[in-house]
C-alpha cells in the first residue's frame, strides 16, 4: 500500500513549489505515476541538440546555485576575518556588541538568542494555525471555495515585510497593549511572561514582533502543507472512509501521517524565513541596553535587524566586518535549520 515513490513526492514538490491545488485527476496521476528518469541521462543517450542544450542549461543553473552559495559564504568569511582577529571579546559567547573600529568588542550571543527565541515563538503560533488552514482548504472547504481561499492565503506572502512592520508598530502593538500587560501581571511567574527589559505596555517587544512574524509565516507553511495534504493518495482516503472513519479519523489516520514530513519541512522553511526576517523586526523591536532575559516582553535586536539598523554607519570596513561576522552566524544557523528539516524528512521516509 505505502508505495515509496508516492511518499517521496511531497518533499520534492514541497521545495520546488510545483502546481498548486490541482484537481482530483491530477492528484491521482501524481500519486500513481512512477518517477521519470532524470533528463540528463536521456540526453546522453540520444544526444539530440535540444536535449543537450536543455541538459546543459539545467546543469548550469544547478552549478550556478552551488557556486552562488559558496561565493556568499566566502564573501562573508573574507569580510569577517579581520574584525574577528581584532575582537577583544569572545565572538560566540559575549553578549555585548561594540563595533567601534577603535575598540572592537563584539559578541553575537545576545543577538542569536533573540533571533532564535522570536523565531521559535513565531513558529509555535504559526504551525498549528497553518495546519488548520491547510486541512481546511484541502479536506473541509468545498473545492470551489478552496481555490480562491488558497489564493488569499498566498496573497499574504505578497505583502512587503515593511508593511507588516508598520502594521505591527502602529496597529498591533497598541491593540495588544492591554493584553500584554495582563499577561505580564497575571502570568508573570512563567518565565516567558516575566517583566521584560522594555515596556510591555508600549509593545515594541518580542511578543508583538513574534506575532507579526507568525502572520508572515502563515502563507509559506500553509502553501506547502496544502500541496502535501492535497496529494494524499485517494485510495488511502477511500479505504479509511470505507472502514467507517469519521472525517477527523480520516485526517488523523491518512492525511496527517502522509503529510507529516512535508508539513515539518514546510515549517522549517518558515523558520528559515523567520530567522532572516529583517525590516519588520527592525521597525517593531525596541533596542535596549540590557541583555535578553528569556521574556517575551524583552526588546533587543535579532542578527538581521541589528545589521540593518547599523547599515547606515558602514563606512569603516572593520565595523562593517563585525556585522558581516554576525551575518555569517545567521547563514550557518539557517544552514543547520535546513539540514535538520532534510534530516527529519529523510528519517520519516525510512520507516513509513
Amino acid at each position: 500500500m505505502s508505495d515509496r515513490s508516492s511518499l517521496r513526492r511531497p518533499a520534492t514538490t514541497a521545495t520546488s513549489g510545483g502546481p498548486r491545488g490541482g484537481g482530483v485527476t491530477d492528484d491521482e496521476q501524481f500519486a500513481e505515476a512512477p518517477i521519470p528518469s532524470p533528463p540528463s541521462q536521456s540526453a546522453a543517450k540520444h544526444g539530440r541538440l535540444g536535449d543537450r542544450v536543455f541538459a546543459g542549461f539545467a546543469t548550469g543553473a544547478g552549478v550556478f546555485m552551488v557556486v552562488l552559495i559558496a561565493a556568499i559564504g566566502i564573501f562573508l568569511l573574507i569580510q569577517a576575518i579581520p574584525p574577528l582577529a581584532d575582537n577583544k571579546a569572545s565572538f560566540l559567547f559575549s553578549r555585548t556588541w561594540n563595533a567601534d573600529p577603535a575598540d572592537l568588542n563584539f559578541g553575537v550571543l545576545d543577538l542569536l538568542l533573540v533571533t532564535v527565541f522570536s523565531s521559535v515563538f513565531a513558529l509555535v503560533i504559526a504551525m498549528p494555525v497553518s495546519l488548520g488552514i491547510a486541512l481546511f482548504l484541502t479536506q473541509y472547504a468545498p473545492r470551489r471555495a478552496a481555490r480562491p481561499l488558497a489564493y488569499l492565503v498566498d496573497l499574504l506572502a505578497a505583502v512587503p515585510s515593511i508593511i507588516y512592520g508598520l502594521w505591527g508598530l502602529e496597529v498591533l502593538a497598541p491593540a495588544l497593549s492591554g493584553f500584554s500587560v495582563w499577561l505580564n501581571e497575571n502570568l508573570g511567574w512563567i518565565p516567558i511572561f516575566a517583566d521584560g527589559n522594555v515596556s510591555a505596555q508600549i509593545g515594541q517587544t518580542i511578543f508583538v514582533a513574534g506575532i507579526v512574524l507568525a502572520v508572515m509565516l502563515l502563507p509559506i507553511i500553509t502553501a506547502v502543507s496544502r500541496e502535501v495534504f492535497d496529494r494524499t493518495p485517494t485510495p488511502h482516503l477511500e479505504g479509511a472512509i470505507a472502514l467507517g472513519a469519521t472525517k477527523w479519523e480520516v485526517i488523523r489516520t491518512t492525511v496527517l501521517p502522509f503529510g507529516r514530513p512535508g508539513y515539518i519541512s514546510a515549517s522549517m522553511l518558515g523558520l528559515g524565513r523567520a530567522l532572516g526576517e529583517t525590516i519588520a523586526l527592525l521597525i517593531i523591536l525596541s533596542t535596549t541596553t540590557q541583555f535578553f532575559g528569556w521574556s517575551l516582553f524583552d526588546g533587543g535586536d535579532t542578527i538581521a535587524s541589528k545589521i540593518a539598523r547599523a547599515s547606515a554607519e558602514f563606512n569603516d570596513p572593520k565595523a562593517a566586518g563585525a556585522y558581516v561576522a554576525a551575518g555569517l552566524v545567521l547563514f550557518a544557523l539557517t544552514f543547520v535549520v535546513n539540514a535538520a528539516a532534510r534530516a527529519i524528512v529523510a528519517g520519516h521516509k525510512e520507516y513509513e
Partner: protein
Amino acid sequence: MKINRHASVLGAVLAAGALVLSACGSDNNTAGGSTSGAGAPAPTGTAQVDCGGKKALTAEGSTAQKGAMEAFIAAYGQKCQGYQLAYNPTGSGNGVKNFTGGQVDFGGSDSALKKDKGEVDAAAKRCKGNPAWNLPLVFGPVAIVYNNKDAQELTLTGELAAKIFSGAITDWSDPAIAAANGGKALPAKKITVVFRADESGTTDNFQKYLSAAGKGAWTKDAGKKFNGGVGQGAQGSAGVADAVAAGDGAIAYAEWSYAQDKNLAMAKIDSGSGPVELNAQTAGVAIQSAKVKGTGNDLELDLKSLYSSNTPGAYPLVLATYEIVCSKGYDADTAKAVKAFLTVAATDAQGQLQEAGYVPLPNQFQSKLLTAIQAIS
C-alpha cells in the same frame, strides 16, 4: 516607512498648494497669509529674487531638513518658474562628502564643517581656494515629549532632563521633579526613557543640549548614538512617537512635527528664567540669542551658547542645520541659481515652515543670512 513624516510632508505640500492659490490674487503677500502663530517672529514676505542661472540645482545631506527643503523647493519653483532643485536626504555625512567632492551644488548638514576632520580644507579646495560658509538656514525644535496621565503639564530644567535621560532619576514621584513643578509631587510611576535606536542628528543635538544645560549632570558623550544607558530604543522618530503615545510613564525627545502629529504632551523647559513652552516664537527667541562662532559671513553657531542660554522666553532645545555653500568659486550660472534659491528659502518659503515642524527665521537673523547669501559669487 514613516507615515507621520509623510503626513507632515503632505501638510507642507498642501500648504504650498494653498500658497499657490492665494498667490493668484496678490503677488506680494505670500508669507504673511499662512503664518498663523500669533506673535511669531514674522519673516518678511517676499524679496527681490534674481532668478536665473542653472536650471536644475542639486543638493544633498541632512535628513533633518528634508521637510523644510521640500517647502523651499516648492517656493523656489513658484517664484522662479522653470527652475528647480533636487534635494537628496542621505544624511549629513554624505552631504558634506558630496559637496566637497563637487558632486552637488551645496550640502545640508546638521553640524558645521569640522576643521580637525579636514572638512574645512576639503571644502576650500572644492570652492577653488575660497572658504565655504556654514549658513544655518533651517531650525527644527526638539520637543521633550512625555506620557503621564497624572501630569497635564510638566516643566523640566536642563539638569533634570540630564538626570532622567541618564537614569539618575527613575520615578515620576522624584522630589526633584516636584521641585521644578511648583512642589507638587506626582504619583509614583516608573519613568520609561525612549530613545532613537538608529543614529540620528537629533540624538546628537539632544545630548549636546544635555551636556551644555545639564549643569554637570550629563556625564556621557554626545554623538549620534544615544549614550544615556537607560530605557529602550525605537526606530526613527515615528517609532519614538508611537512608543511615547502608547506607554504611560514614557518620556522621549522627538522633532516637533512628530510631537504635533501624535498630539504628545511636550515638557516646558526652565533654563533659569521660568518655564518656557515650545512654540515658534520661543524657539525664535532662542535662535536670536545664539552667538555666531564663524567669522564674517560664515554663520557657524555656537551651540553651547544656544543650549545653555537662559534668555527669558527662549526655548533653547533647537536643532540647527546648515546649508554649506562656497563663498566664491561657483561658475556664474551656478552662483546665480544658488543665490536665488537660498534667497527664496530665507524669505518667501519661511511662511510654510511652521506647518512642517520648523521655526521660521527671526528677523534679525534673517537679515544676517541674506547678507551672506548676497555675498556669494
